[in-house]
Structures are given as structure tokens and as C-alpha cells.
């Protein structure tokens, strides 16, 4: 397996605050990586730097053999990077089906270079909504959705871009136990269909059952990276979470 995503010596500052300090991370094709860390440890900043929402000052991001440095967020999406947001950010004035249309019209269309047929767009829309169990609400507006449905829409929209790598940023925060199982099963299915997944999560049971590998960020530094069961026993990780 080759590295799909490779983050090298990544650094990001906000004024005097060092949000990310010399972070190195590799993700192989088809892998399921869990990324954990206490609040404010730089997880979301790392995602933003990988996806182009923020531009890193130091280091570089390579994806699928190409350098991502200097590319805008939408260009990275075109190359196969997709993300869901920590707080769902649906297009509020568009129906669920239309929400999913946007990445198809802009990313898939761009990648293939030919306009998609109206029929194939609607077919794919219902297919994706079915995958996340929202097909009955296709014509509804996002405001009609519950929290868990909102997260599912967020994932479905990310999937509509037909990514190689999906970064799920706290897709389960605030959900009940059964809802978490729901989302986990969904992510598993996506991974089985060949998509590499980075899961950023606080809920340890979810991370442990999902991840093949675990990376830990603390204060902008990666302090551990390895098999989940080894990482959670790592003294540095224990200290970061529980204190001395």
C-alpha cells in the first residue's frame, strides 16, 4: 500500500500561538485512521490545513502523489479530498437532494470534464440519500432534520464529491449511543467501498472500534502514532488526557 496522504513538517501559527508544530502524518490508501487529542490540540486546524481552508506556513501536504501546497480548498476537493464539518454546514436554502447536487455539479463534473446528465445526477442523489437513510426527506430543507440526520447529510454531501479520502471531523459529537453506531456503520461501509477515512473523534469507544491506526495530537504536536491498543497505553497519551 502506498501513502495516499502525506503531511510533512506541517506548521501553523495564529499570531503568537502555535497551533501546529512540525506535524508528520501518513495515511495509506484504504486505511482507517483515527485522530484524537484533547480540545484545542490542533485537530481541526490540521484538517483545515490538509483541506485548504487554512494555508499552512511551514511544511507541505502531498495527496495522491501531488503537492497540495498553495491550492485553494475547492481545487483540493477536485483532486479527491473531501471533508465533513464539525458543526454541520448545510446549504440551508436548498433541499437535501440539491445539497448533494452541488459537489456533483462542481467536483464530479470538473473531474470528468463532461457535464453530467440530469438523470444520472438524480439517480446518484437518491442513491446517496438512500445510503445515509435520508431518501424520504429528499425534498425537505435542512432545517427539518434532526442532529443525527444533519450529520448524515454532511457525510452524504462529502461522498457526493466521490473522494479518495474522507475526513470526518467529529461526525458523532453530541449523538446518542445508537446514533453513533449508525454513523460508524456508515463510515465502515464507505471504507469497504475503497475510500480512505480519517476519523476525528472524542468518543473513544467509536474511535477504538473503527480505527486501524491511531494518531494523537497534543498542543499541536503529534505525540503518538500506531496500533490503537498500543497508543492508548502510551504513557504520554495517558498523561495528556489524565494529567500527571
Amino acid at each position, binding site marked *: 500500500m502506498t501513502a495516499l496522504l502525506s503531511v510533512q513538517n506541517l506548521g501553523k501559527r495564529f499570531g503568537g500561538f502555535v497551533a501546529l508544530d512540525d506535524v508528520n502524518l501518513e495515511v495509506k490508501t484504504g486505511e482507517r485512521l483515527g485522530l484524537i487529542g484533547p480540545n484545542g490540540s490542533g485537530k481541526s486546524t490540521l484538517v483545515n490545513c490538509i483541506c485548504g481552508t487554512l494555508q499552512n506556513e511551514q511544511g507541505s501536504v502531498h495527496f495522491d502523489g501531488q503537492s497540495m501546497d498553495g491550492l485553494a480548498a*475547492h481545487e483540493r476537493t477536485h483532486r479527491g479530498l473531501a471533508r465533513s464539518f464539525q458543526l454541520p454546514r448545510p*446549504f440551508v436554502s436548498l433541499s437535501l437532494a440539491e445539497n448533494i447536487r*452541488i459537489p456533483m*455539479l*462542481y467536483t464530479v463534473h*470538473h473531474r470528468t470534464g463532461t457535464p453530467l446528465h440530469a438523470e444520472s445526477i438524480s439517480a446518484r442523489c437518491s442513491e446517496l440519500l438512500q445510503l445515509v437513510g435520508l431518501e424520504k426527506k429528499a425534498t425537505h430543507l435542512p432545517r427539518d432534520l434532526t442532529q443525527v440526520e444533519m450529520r448524515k447529510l454532511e457525510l452524504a454531501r462529502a461522498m*457526493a464529491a466521490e473522494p479518495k479520502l474522507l475526513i470526518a471531523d467529529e461526525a458523532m459529537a453530541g449523538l446518542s449511543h445508537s446514533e453513533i453506531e449508525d454513523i460508524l456503520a456508515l463510515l465502515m461501509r464507505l471504507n469497504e467501498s475503497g475510500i480512505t477515512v480519517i476519523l476525528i473523534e472524542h468518543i473513544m469507544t467509536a474511535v477504538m472500534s473503527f480505527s486501524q491506526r491511531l494518531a494523537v495530537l497534543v498542543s499541536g504536536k503529534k505525540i503518538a502514532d500506531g496500533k490503537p491498543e498500543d497508543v492508548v497505553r502510551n504513557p504520554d497519551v495517558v498523561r495528556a488526557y489524565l494529567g500527571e
Partner: protein
Amino acid sequence: MRMPLFTLIAIVVAIVVFVLLRLPNVEYLFVAGYTIVQYIVLSTAWNILGGYCGYVNFGSAAFFALGAYSTVALATFGTQLDDLVPESVAPFFHLIFPLPLPVLIVIGGVVSGIVGFGTGYLTLRLRGAFFAIATLALSVVLQTLVVNWDFVGGSGGAYVVRPGEFPGLGSYMQYLFLLILGLAVLSLVLARWIERSRLGYGFAAIRDDELAAEASGVPTLRLKLIATTLSGALMGMAGAPFPYYIGYLAPVSAFGLEYAVNSIAMPLIGGTTNWAGPLIGTILLGTLQQVTTVTISSAVNVLLVGVLLIAFVIIAPNGIVGLVQERLQARRRK
């Protein structure tokens, strides 16, 4: 409805309006009608950026005045040809000047479109209120430039002599009305096409959430530049025939507050997410303004806009179209 059919219907409606207005043989109908139809173009143009993309432009008057002043500049150039160009090329210039109005409209559109693009490039990294303030500033800067440009009359304004008749049509006023009617059809067709196209979906994504739009692969900056250019160009096109309509163009009237206010108020009252919104809002508010101008005073117009805006913000925040859509959806759910 497919686009060719929509275009055809729009053209037919425009022709019917023109024919109906000709029937009573009252010239004033065209004078009043011109103002209303001109606002259809302006409010539709505003809506492409403000309604579809969510970027509020307070500088509509600037783009409108740019179109008007390109006409004034070219008309003045035409009348002073012998002083301005060398004798050797004068015959060539005499051949093409005075430029026909449709050409002036295209030029006004190009000039305003270019300025729209430039403004967009400089300001579109600003969001919300900051973008609105920047467009307001553009209006002030351009007005200052025009006031200090003697060639187009400076602060004193410029006269543009309107020909009395247009061959084959009767009065020149009717010709002007026909042109602005054509522009209204063009802008409505363009707005509706955008709405149903890939571009329209991209605009809607930008309006709702720019970060999420980028993450979905929407090139937000490029799309916003397309919107400012199109919106600016249409406003400039609406302004180009204006000097011939008004006869005497002063900076105060071309950069008037009512252009900025009306082109925001009309889409807001009609509804901003749909091509029909600005049209409905303009017909309603524009007609009301024309009636009050005749019956009370044109000074009441701004008050009228203010009162209606407040009323609509409270009763129907999504405009008339939004209100109707909500009612229909509520009924469907029952």
C-alpha cells in the same frame, strides 16, 4: 418550462405591453413606463449578486451612472469631433458618430462590467457589511471623479439632445422604451437561466455557506467575479440610454440615492431567490412610486420605500415570492 419557451413568452409579453401602451396615444405612459422597466433591469441585476450570491451591493447607482456617463462622454465626443481628432481621420469618425443607442448600451455594459469585475476582485474577500460598505465607497469615489471631470459636464451636468423622432416608430421616447424593454427581457432571461444552471447552484451554495461551498468544490472567488461582472454590466446597460431619456444628466441625479435604495428594496419586497421576485417587486413598488409622483410628490417615494421595506421585513421576510412558496408548501403538507 424550457429556456427557449420562456424567452419566447418574455418577448411576446414585452411586445404586448408595448402595443397596449401605444393604444391610448399618451406619451406620458412611455415616460412613466420607462422608469419602471428600467428598474426591472436594475433590480434583476442587483439580484444576481445580492439575491443569488448573498452579496449586498449598495453601489448600484455607481454602475448605473457609469453606463449613463459613458453615453454622455461618447455623445460629447461626437459633437466635438472637429476639435478633438486630427483632420486626417475626422471623416472616419464622422462616419461612425453619433453612435447608435444599441451600440452605446453595449459600451455602457462593457464599461460597467469591467468596473464590476475590478470591484469584485478588490472587495470580494470582504463579507457581509464590509462588502456593502466597499460598494457604497465605490459610488462616492466615482461620483467625485465625475464631478471633477469637465468633459462630461462636471458638477454642472451635461445636456444630451434627444432626437425628436425615431423613423418608423414615432416618438424617440417610444424607441427608448422599446430598448429598455428589450434589456428587461434580456436580464430576466439571463436571471432565469442562471437560476436553473450549474452557475445558479454554485451561487446558492455561496449564499448559504461559502466554506461548505469551497469544500464541495465550488470555485467561490471565480463565481463571485462572474456575478459582479454580470450584475455590473446589466446595470451599466440600464444606465446607457438614461441621458437620452432625461435630456440633462447631473451627477446628483445619476448617482441618486433612489437607484441604490430601489434596486435593493424591489428584490427584497418581491423575493430574492427567484427571477420573478425582482420583477414583481419592481412592478409593485415602481408603479406605486409613479402614482405618488403624479398625485402627491416624488419626495414621498423614499418614504414609501422605507415603510414598505419595514412592513415586508416583518410580514414577509422572504418577499412576495417567498410568502407564496411557503403557503403552497404548507398546503401540500396538509
